[in-house]
């Protein structure tokens, strides 16, 4: 980890550092990949970071807050991390890089959110199996091991897999 001198510290440098902060529940993706970083403001005496929770009740929020504080400690100025809801996080905020990292680590990325379509119809749209790529997959359960994941089964490779929910 490189300590950046205060004079050269800008928003881009802080955002790049936040790309090192992994999601505690899916460590293959960072909070930047997930689109959780809504705002970074570098003031002379403080760094302000506004994050959008993926789910209101996400139990990883405290861990994420301390991981952000720990990572930004390298910049040697106070860090103010806030979780806000004024922009609702949706799964459409996951970046293309984040979607690819999800797929490589065995999670199907979410389909585009269609608010006008019932949830069950959205979940039942073809999801590509992250293991073999087949679209012969079926929804097993809209609820999985964490709030943001659903469970599917692939008829081609006969493996269960998890998908990030459209939300």
């Amino acid at each position, binding site marked *: 980890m490189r300590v950046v001198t205060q004079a050269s510290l800008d928003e881009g440098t802080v955002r790049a550092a936040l790309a090192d902060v992994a999601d505690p529940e899916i460590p293959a993706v960072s909070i930047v990949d997930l689109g959780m970083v809504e705002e970074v403001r570098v003031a002379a005496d403080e760094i302000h970071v506004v994050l959008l*929770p993926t789910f*209101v*009740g*996400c*139990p990883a929020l405290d861990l994420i807050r301390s991981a952000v504080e720990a990572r930004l400690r390298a910049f040697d100025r106070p860090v103010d991390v806030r979780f806000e809801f004024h922009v609702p*996080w*949706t799964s459409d905020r996951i970046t293309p890089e984040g979607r690819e990292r999800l797929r490589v680590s065995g999670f199907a990325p979410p389909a585009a959110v269609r608010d006008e379509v019932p949830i069950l119809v959205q979940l039942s749209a073809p999801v590509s199996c992250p293991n073999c790529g087949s679209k012969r997959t079926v929804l097993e359960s*809209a*609820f*999985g091991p964490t709030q943001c994941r659903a469970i599917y089964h692939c008829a081609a490779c006969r493996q269960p897999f998890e998908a990030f929910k459209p939300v």
Partner: protein
Amino acid sequence: MAVVPKVALGELLRSMADDEFVIGFSDSEWTGIAPILEEDIAMSSLAQDEIGHAAALYGLLGTLLDEDPDALAYDRRPQEYRHCRLLDHGRGDWAMAIARRYLYDSADAVRLEALAGGAWEPLADLVGKLIREERYHRMHVGAWLERLAHDDGEARTRLLVALRQLQHDAATVFAPLPDEVALIEAGILAAPMPELEGRWRQAIGPTFAELDLPMPPAAAQPERGRLDHGDAFDWLWREFTSVRRSEPGVSW
């Protein structure tokens, strides 16, 4: 907004937080004993959502009143909670869990719509996010209500028994709040509770008609709809406060 009606807003936040907290703990009673594995996971996930929603609402209430959100959640006596009596019937069987959740989720959805875009930003912001998550809950419980109602044997019978047991408390989500007129004047709440109850009846009417289920009557004593919680809640309260009471003041 010129002036925040602090007392009325506090009552609204307390009622919503207590509702989500109590239904969350009630649903967590199914962890490990739901009828099938997928439901074990689903109910646990729903419970986690609701308790998370409660934590966010207690957070807003704590900021408003300058009080500790954990103390608001855990350090009150049972009679000081302001959740609706619909949630005071104990865990019951699976049909009871589905009936209670269907009635609650459908009513909560109407309440959230009436708060969306409201004048107190911290709540309006949170409500926008809650609405997105609650869609999953309604999808899930709606499918189960149909499944039980379409059965021509024990499942339907049990569903009817549960709905009968809940019927007089079904509408208590819309029990009038102290000074709710102040919330409406301030632009925080879109309409008075009796009007929201009417919207809820319109929303669930077609489903109840299609499934040939009896619509719940009006609450017998709407003004007591968030009071007099009874023995089932005393038991649940002892459960969910047991860890907190075992070592007062400790951070877990």
